[in-house]
């Protein structure tokens, strides 16, 4: 297997991901994506109080730190038909929106940037020219020659001290790095600025949820009360802090993140013609303006796009057992009905069965099972979820701001519309939607203030809090758009306890292995699209495309009730 490239660990992601690529000459012929860690959170959830589930589910992932908490409370609310106050929906939108902005900026600078930015090259930058470059791109105030001279000295001292730490043994000087030294220095400066910025804007979660990472939620509303005359509730001081954070978010997105994305992308236009992947895109829809029951009020519409055809948006039904199904043909699980069956999450069953090589090992046997991830499919199709799917869905459904942003980007980069379907397009889509959310944050904030002004301070609906008020059996799905894509939790409640719990998450869609028909997942398909490796020992090309998806592997690995039972009552939203 001398022509098999192995990249494990894939770093600068969440979780444990391994990529194996079979080479033909210097080209990737086939790629295999493997999640290498399992915990079994869904099994742990079984038998627990459904109101507690969010805290467990939230620990599926600490990077997209609140999304599983939110999906979980929505699943319980959907199962019980539990209405939440308008303020709660607005606060949840603000929290999830803040998560997008925080997460996308951190992904760009701290997880993805070093695929494009050569830290060592920055040492030869001219601070004055760097300043001119920065000022030509944006009016961000930290752009003087002195600022960049200090940054260069800091970097130089660090490198000359000989202890490279997180920058050690990387791929500096690789010919795939195309940025001039000045752009590299600017990007390194913004890497550090973004670290500082993210700490401050994460405080929005602390205001409403008490802490970040892992802020608190509650089934039936939000835990933070609103009382303008209390020192211990959401009051004018807290709202002013929220407004400050929204301003801080907007400033950084507009003055740093968007200009940097466009500037860096302009040196890597060739990445607009590789890494497309499946051409199928899925969104569940989210950010309600009129409750989760009214999909017409969602900022992000739900739907499916097949084969790049933006003229048709297919409707997606989360409850229909023939639509979303998970396969385990190449996963370390067994199904009672055999390895080739697909099961809807309500009927999900999982038995851990590790059949991979005994560690320590060099290669996986990719003809057999090779991942702790399952392979979700929509009507049998492998789908990509995430920022690109959302931007395409907004574009296809005629969202004006999206059309403007996409048009501006294609125009500035002077690339054809097909460039959207690529590694570069995926990374650009993430930046563009961040702008959409930064603007939407102000809207939700204004609505919250207007609602309070009109006298509505309710944040919690008590009516179904006591489990004794619940039906003997209920089931529901809590879905949302998480930063990395469509996320849904399916819950079955019986006798006030969780009978079954199943999460199908963004990175399972994207990072899952082949299904029974041999259809690759989105990562695998993207790596098989036009990837030439300069040096297999320095797999920077693999990292670029994999990072363009923003992998989150702890999320993607999960398991369900081993006794998963078929249920007959299907609730339609």
């Amino acid at each position, binding site marked *: 297997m001398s022509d098999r490239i*192995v990249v494990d660990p894939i770093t600068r992601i969440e979780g444990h991901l391994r990529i194996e690529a079979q080479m033909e000459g210097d080209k990737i012929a086939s790629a295999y994506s493997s999640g290498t860690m399992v915990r079994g959170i869904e099994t742990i959830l079984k038998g627990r109080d459904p109101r507690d589930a969010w805290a467990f589910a939230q620990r599926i992932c600490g990077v997209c*730190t609140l999304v599983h908490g939110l999906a979980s409370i929505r699943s319980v609310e959907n199962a019980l038909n539990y209405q939440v106050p308008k303020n709660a929906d607005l606060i949840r939108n603000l929290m999830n929106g803040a998560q997008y902005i925080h997460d996308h900026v951190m992904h760009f600078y701290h997880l993805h940037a070093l695929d494009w930015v050569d830290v060592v090259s920055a040492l030869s930058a001219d601070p004055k020219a760097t300043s001119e470059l920065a000022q030509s791109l944006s009016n961000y105030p930290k752009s003087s020659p002195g600022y960049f001279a200090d940054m260069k000295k800091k970097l130089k001292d660090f490198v000359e001290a000989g*202890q490279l*730490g997180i920058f050690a043994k990387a791929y500096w000087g690789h010919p795939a790095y195309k940025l001039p030294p000045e752009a590299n220095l600017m990007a390194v400066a913004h890497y550090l600025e973004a670290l500082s910025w993210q700490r401050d804007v994460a*405080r929005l979660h602390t205001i409403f*949820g*008490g802490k970040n990472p892992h802020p608190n939620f509650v089934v039936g509303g939000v835990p933070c009360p609103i009382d303008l005359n209390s020192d211990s509730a959401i009051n004018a001081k807290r709202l002013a802090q929220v407004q400050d954070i929204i301003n801080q978010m907007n400033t950084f997105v507009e003055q740093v993140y968007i200009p940097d994305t466009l500037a860096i992308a302009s040196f890597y236009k060739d990445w607009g013609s590789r890494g497309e992947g499946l051409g199928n895109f899925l969104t569940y829809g989210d950010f309600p303006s009129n409750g989760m029951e009214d999909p017409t009020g969602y900022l992000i519409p739900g739907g499916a796009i097949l084969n790049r055809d933006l003229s048709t948006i297919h409707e997606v039904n989360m409850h229909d057992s023939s639509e979303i199904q998970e396969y385990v043909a190449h996963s370390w699980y067994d199904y009672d009905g055999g390895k080739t069956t697909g099961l809807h999450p309500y009927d999900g069953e999982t038995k851990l069965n590790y059949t991979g090589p005994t*560690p*320590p090992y060099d290669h996986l046997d990719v003809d057999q099972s090779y991942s702790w991830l399952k392979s979700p499919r929509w009507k049998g199709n492998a789908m990509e979820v995430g920022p690109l799917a959302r931007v395409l869905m907004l574009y296809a459904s005629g969202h004006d701001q999206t059309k403007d942003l996409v048009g501006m980007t294609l125009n500035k980069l002077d690339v054809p519309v097909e460039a959207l379907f690529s590694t570069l397009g995926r990374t650009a889509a993430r930046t563009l939607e961040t702008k959409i959310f930064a603007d939407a944050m102000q809207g939700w904030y204004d609505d919250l203030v207007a609602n309070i002004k009109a006298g509505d301070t309710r944040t919690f609906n008590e009516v179904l809090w006591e489990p004794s008020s619940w039906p003997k059996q209920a089931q529901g799905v809590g879905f949302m758009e998480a930063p990395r894509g469509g996320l849904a939790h399916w819950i079955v409640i019986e006798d006030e306890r969780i009978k079954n719990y199943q999460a199908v998450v963004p990175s399972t869609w994207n990072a899952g292995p082949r299904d029974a028909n041999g259809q690759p997942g989105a990562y695998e398909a993207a790596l098989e699209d036009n990837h030439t490796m300069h040096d297999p020992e320095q797999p920077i090309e693999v990292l670029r495309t994999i990072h363009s998806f923003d992998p989150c592997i702890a999320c993607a690995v999960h398991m369900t009730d081993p006794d998963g039972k078929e249920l007959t009552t299907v609730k339609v939203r």
Partner: protein
Amino acid sequence: MTNKFDDKNKTLGDTLRSRGISRRSFLKFCAATASMMALPPAMIPKVAHALENAKRPSVIWLSFQECTGCTESLTRSHSATIENLIFDSISLDYHHTLQAASGHAAEAAREAAMEENHGNYILVVDGSIPMDNPGYSTIAGISNYDMLMDTAKGAAAIIAVGTCATYGGIPHAKPNPTGAVSVGDLIKDKPIINVPGCPPIPVVITGVVTHFLTFGTIPELDHIGRPKVFYGQSIHDRCYRRPFYDKGLFAETFDDEGAQKGWCLFKLGCKGPTTYNACATTKWNNGTSFPIEAGHPCIGCSEPDFWDGGGFYKALSMPTENITQTALYTAAGAAAVGVAAGALNRAKKNAATKAHPNTTIEDLEK
């Protein structure tokens, strides 16, 4: 390829000089450090010599069965900040989420750091270790158990970060499907500092690291290995809502009068009385707030087995002290319970102090 990195390693002394710090100020700093460490003045030149030749200590951070929440928390620390730590105080030589290199190069970085700093590096671990099957969690084809044992051998000390690494955490919650265990369950011959929390408070993670770097000692630990400076007091004892507990004023549900006015969340299931952590004093995210202040009861996330405590919204069901049951049945006599809990806590603290005196660098070398 450019390779600036083969330059001769610089010591702290070189670095300070290159930053224009004079010999005189440096010696003053050494005197202050010696004084903090309670060393006689004759030791100052030795301290100076040691510091001058010190490189930034190598830190290897291993992530096992985890959610990356602990790493995220690390990046939220306002002081010390992550960028100051990695530029000025430590050499973070292996860290999946932050390091530039992947695959073979990443593993080579870990191996090089282990070899070059054998006996001196700090090992940080987040996540639990699955023992039922080595295939349940691997990195570079190596099981978590093998990687932990191999990397721990040459470590000066181990910091277990987060409730998963310290006590098994959520993977260890019933029925523990993968046989997850903590670092302390496996390593018995190294000093381990437990920094629990789900995740730990950002500045608590960096606070423990900087304590070790600044004073060269492990801070005083409680009976379950937590630094007393952060985990010495219950959240309840430091809670700004404590006076309402003492007065018997409770929120009965979310968004009622009591919730809005900031009364005690005991009846909503708050685990503050049985949870030892700094949330109520240090607070979260640059002192912005903490769960109770934002209206949600404490779920007890820095305590072992808090996931199996019987329900987050059930009044005091933590399986720790008998006071929980007492309190549950005598909610009306809340003040008396508070006093009783205080007495119990003091007794527990004294026992912990006796059992765990300060650990010094000398102890580590034994």
